[in-house]
């Protein structure tokens, strides 16, 4: 435990702010450094977040205050997040999770086993403050390398990625990030560490490859193998480290940790949770984790765990959209909305910030997110549709109440849209989301026309058509998907029906409201013509009563509309997105199948060549077969990855849905109850008036 904590101290003990701690951890020990990139790749921020917490609570005292003051540029912490974003997009495989934990533990083992390492670890920290604030990653690396000589080339590679990514994210704009993260994704295929491992294993010669290689990711392998004599850590020692880690992450302690580090609690809890789940992992699948196959197995296993995990996420992020404002005149006018964010998430620069966004910005955000995440099977919440009619009214009409209603409706639905986006743990990590919330000026979104009104619906319909067509062809191996898709489709039908029914309910309520108002007027006139004073008085009271009731009806009509009509409309759109993710899975399957067909053809061609005895072309054919075999494996893995993501996403979606509906029905009931209580008061007040008629 001591060793562990000291290891951690070096890594994370820098202060309460886990951001800094993280920054430090990245820059501090070469070991850690070499580990981290993989960490980051393999795992979304979870690990990085989770650990600082535990360390903070445990090791505050041991941390070096001097180092704390190492004024890392405040931007730096953010950088570390960026690569995270990149990885966050990647589906979270279990194989990765497993490796992640190990990595975390790794420095510990090294610390325990050899003090020099400890020194090594601490040294870079001192270097950092000395450096310029811009912190050239190259320099850093060069600084560290000498100390970390044994580091294999392979292990330094991912590190490079990390470092190159982060500053670019910080200082330049996102296109570059994309450029960086993309190749990364491509390179490592489904980003499963196993793939990584393969590559590594090839580079790193055998020794570590055996037991520890599976247990720990290639990084750890790299370190272990490279750490000269001392660092020849046996599998046993690693295991002990693991068990220690388990101890650290045991539930009770975790609770404590949470209690102390409230600020990060919200984001971390789910991930920490996962970590606990994962810590148990390494011990069992270790031996069986043979390269690629292991990853998909682990994936399947964690599905339930992921489900559990979802239930716990609670983001300390509140978004509200207020002050819709008309900007400009005539047909060029547009509505601008104030997007206010309140957050305790450390990934944002401040706790509260406000930006102004126009409708097309929201559409632009959707496009960006959809482009990046849809293909991986993520359900990207769709924004409200563009409404030419509504907006034209706003542009032309000045005090038309229907245009006011339109604006309010739009505002509310944009708010719900954005809330859904940030509720999504993976989407929240997207730099575009952060930029949308934080950045003062956004580049003007273009081509949002495609998303306008009918076009948008058409797009969704097209997607669903394609899906249904493919379903016929697809010999569904997984019943779950087949059933779910059917469920989603029938749900879509039902929601549309319900939507129509609620619509008529709302219009009847409005009718009642109008009728009541007219009746109230009539009663008022009747009252004023009445000779009998008491009756006249009672009638005018009655007119007032009916006026109040009319108000209640009106409010209730608004509630019906805003709670149910809009909720259903949202979910009709969301179901479109759900179908879209099924569609992506289908596409991925198609690609895999196509590749298999091609491979088959290539093999046949090879057979023919063999038969024809044409050795000159045989080599080329063999190469092609090898290439296509690789592709088949890759596509299959991709398909499995997308499938897993879709599955996870659908489960998440359903949970969100249940939560959403529950929230809305409670809200609705509260409004019903309130208006009913108001009604009782009205009647109670009227009764004596009626009785007073002589």
């Amino acid at each position, binding site marked *: 435990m001591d060793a562990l904590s000291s290891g951690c101290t070096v890594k994370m003990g820098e202060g309460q702010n886990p951001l800094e701690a993280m920054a430090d951890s990245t820059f501090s020990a070469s070991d850690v450094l070499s580990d981290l990139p993989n960490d980051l790749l393999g795992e979304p921020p979870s690990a990085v977040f989770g650990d600082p917490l535990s360390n903070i609570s445990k090791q505050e005292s041991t941390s070096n205050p001097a180092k704390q003051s190492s004024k890392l540029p405040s931007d730096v912490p953010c950088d570390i997040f960026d690569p995270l974003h990149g990885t966050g997009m990647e589906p979270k495989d279990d194989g990765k999770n497993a490796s992640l934990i190990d990595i975390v533990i790794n420095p510990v083992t090294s610390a325990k086993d050899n003090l020099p390492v400890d020194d090594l670890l601490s040294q870079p920290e001192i270097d950092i403050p000395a450096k310029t604030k811009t912190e050239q990653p190259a320099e850093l690396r060069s600084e560290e390398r000498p100390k970390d000589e044994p580091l294999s080339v392979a292990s330094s590679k991912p590190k490079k990625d990390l470092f190159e990514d982060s500053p670019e994210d910080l200082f330049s704009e996102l296109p570059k990030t994309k450029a960086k993260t993309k190749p990364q994704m491509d390179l490592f295929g489904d980003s499963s560490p196993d793939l990584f491992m393969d590559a590594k294993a090839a580079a790193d010669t055998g020794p570590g490859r055996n037991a520890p290689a599976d247990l720990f990711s290639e990084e750890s392998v790299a370190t272990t193998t490279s750490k000269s004599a001392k660092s020849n850590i046996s599998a046993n020692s690693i295991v002990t480290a693991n068990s220690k880690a388990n101890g650290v992450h045991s539930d009770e302690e975790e609770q404590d940790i949470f209690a102390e580090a409230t600020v990060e609690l919200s984001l971390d809890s789910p991930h920490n949770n996962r970590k606990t789940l994962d810590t148990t992992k390494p011990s069992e699948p270790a031996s069986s984790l043979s390269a690629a196959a292991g990853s998909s197995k682990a994936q399947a296993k964690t599905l339930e765990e992921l489900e559990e995990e979802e239930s716990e996420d609670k983001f300390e992020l509140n978004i509200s959209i207020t002050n819709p404002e008309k900007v400009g005149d005539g047909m060029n006018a547009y509505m601008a909305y104030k997007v206010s964010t309140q957050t305790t998430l450390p990934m944002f620069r401040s706790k509260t910030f406000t930006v102004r966004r126009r409708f097309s910005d929201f559409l632009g955000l959707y496009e960006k997110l959809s482009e990046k995440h849809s293909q991986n099977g993520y359900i990207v919440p769709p924004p409200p549709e563009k409404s030419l009619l509504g907006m034209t009214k706003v542009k032309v009409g000045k005090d038309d109440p229907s245009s006011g209603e339109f604006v309010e409706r739009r505002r509310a639905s944009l708010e719900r849209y954005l809330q859904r986006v940030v509720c999504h743990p993976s989407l929240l990590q997207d730099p575009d989301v952060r930029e949308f919330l934080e950045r003062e000026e956004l580049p003007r979104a273009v081509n949002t026309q495609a998303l306008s009104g009918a076009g948008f619906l058409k797009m969704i319909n097209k997607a669903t058509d394609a899906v249904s067509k493919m379903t016929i062809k697809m010999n569904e191996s997984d019943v779950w998907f087949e059933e779910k898709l059917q469920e989603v489709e029938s749900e879509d039908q039902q929601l549309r029906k319900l939507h129509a029914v609620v619509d*008529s309910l709302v219009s009847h309520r409005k009718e009642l409201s109008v009728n009541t108002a007219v009746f109230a007027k009539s009663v008022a006139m009747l009252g004023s013509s009445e000779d009998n004073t008491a009756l006249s008085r009672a009638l005018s009271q009655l007119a007032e009563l009916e006026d109040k009731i009319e108000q209640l009806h009106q409010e209730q009509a608004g509630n019906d509309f805003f709670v149910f009509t809009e909720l259903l409309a949202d979910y009709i759109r969301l179901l479109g997105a759900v179908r879209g993710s099924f569609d992506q899975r289908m596409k991925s399957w198609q690609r895999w199948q196509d590749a298999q067909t091609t491979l088959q053809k290539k093999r046949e061609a090879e057979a023919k060549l063999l038969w024809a005895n044409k050795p000159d072309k045989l080599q080329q054919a063999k190469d092609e077969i090898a290439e296509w075999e690789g592709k088949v494996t890759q596509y299959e893995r991709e398909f499995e990855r997308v499938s897993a993501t879709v599955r996870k996403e659908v489960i998440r979606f359903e949970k969100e849905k249940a939560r959403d509906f529950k929230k809305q029905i409670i809200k609705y009931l509260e409004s019903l109850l309130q208006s009913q209580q108001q009604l009782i008061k009205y009647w109670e007040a009227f009764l004596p008036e009626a009785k007073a008629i*002589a």
Partner: protein
Amino acid sequence: MNRSGKTADTMEGSGLTISASSIKVNEATLDEDTLVFSITSQKLSNGMGVCVCRTYEDFEWLQQSLFAPDEPDLHGVIFPPLPAKLIMSPQSQINNKTLKQLGFLALGDCCRTYCEALELYLQQVALHPILSKNKALETLLTNTESPGKQRAKKGIFNRLSQVMEEKRKESHKDVDDFFQNERDNNSNMTALTKVTTERFLDVVLAEQRLSVASKHLSSSIQLWVNQEDSANAAFSKICLKTSKVFETIKRNFEKTAENNISTLGLGLDLQSRYQEAEKEMLFRRTCKLVELEAANKNTERAKANKKGIMEEVRNVLEKQFDGMSSMARQEVGRFHQSRVALLRTALVSWCEQQLNTATEIAALYSEHLEACQKLPEE
């Protein structure tokens, strides 16, 4: 509306032997095309119950019998208004025409409201100091034979001939300020009450439509949940609860509409018809007045040889008119009393019933709310 049955019943020994407040029109049953109403009442003397079955024609017969043309004073009576005939379509559904004609009376389950209106009519007749003495009422309430067959000749209730004259005579200036006032007031109030009743009917109809829409929504949700398998149990539960909530909302509108119909709706409808009845009475008097004035003119212009006859005619008319006017004066006073009383009863019971419903529904809502908050999310 059950106001002091005693005064009427005990006024004359020869009066009704039935207690006015005991008269009930219990139910209407459809015998082929004809609605048959079962009427129960109790004897004043021994409280013995009497039960008869009557058709609408029997009611019409009563209404016509009540007015004996040979008694000119009766022209000054405001006759309790008999509701228009309820025609049931084969599917025993209310069509739009009936609805327009009958308003509230066409609503309610199994002609309930219509029965209540007939009951009110009978009670009003029985409570009337003069009309209650008419043997026709007693016959209708107690005789086992249906009196409707022997139809009375068309009396003053033949409105068709009136319509033409109405326009001409309605604006005739009255000699008596009291009646002039009452006429003005009546035409004003008649119009207003009619409009108010119609608008209240619109409110009730909207409530009924909402009730239907809520029911529809509730069952749609339920249907949906039944289709979903139990994969997402939490969501199913929430939907089921939502369905229940809309069931309650449906009940709310249903009850509210029912209350509206059976109390204020019926009250306003009666009010409106009563005002029409007053208007008719006032019109009859105005006709007599016009007649009298014509006679006066004729008498003045008449040559000496005819003067005697003319004066005689005029005197008869004058006597009739005076008798009618004094009766009318009484009746107007009585009408206003009972009108206010009727409306008061309607308003009070309306308010009480709505308050009950509102309280009941509020309790249901808070039950739902509590249950919803306890629902699992996962």
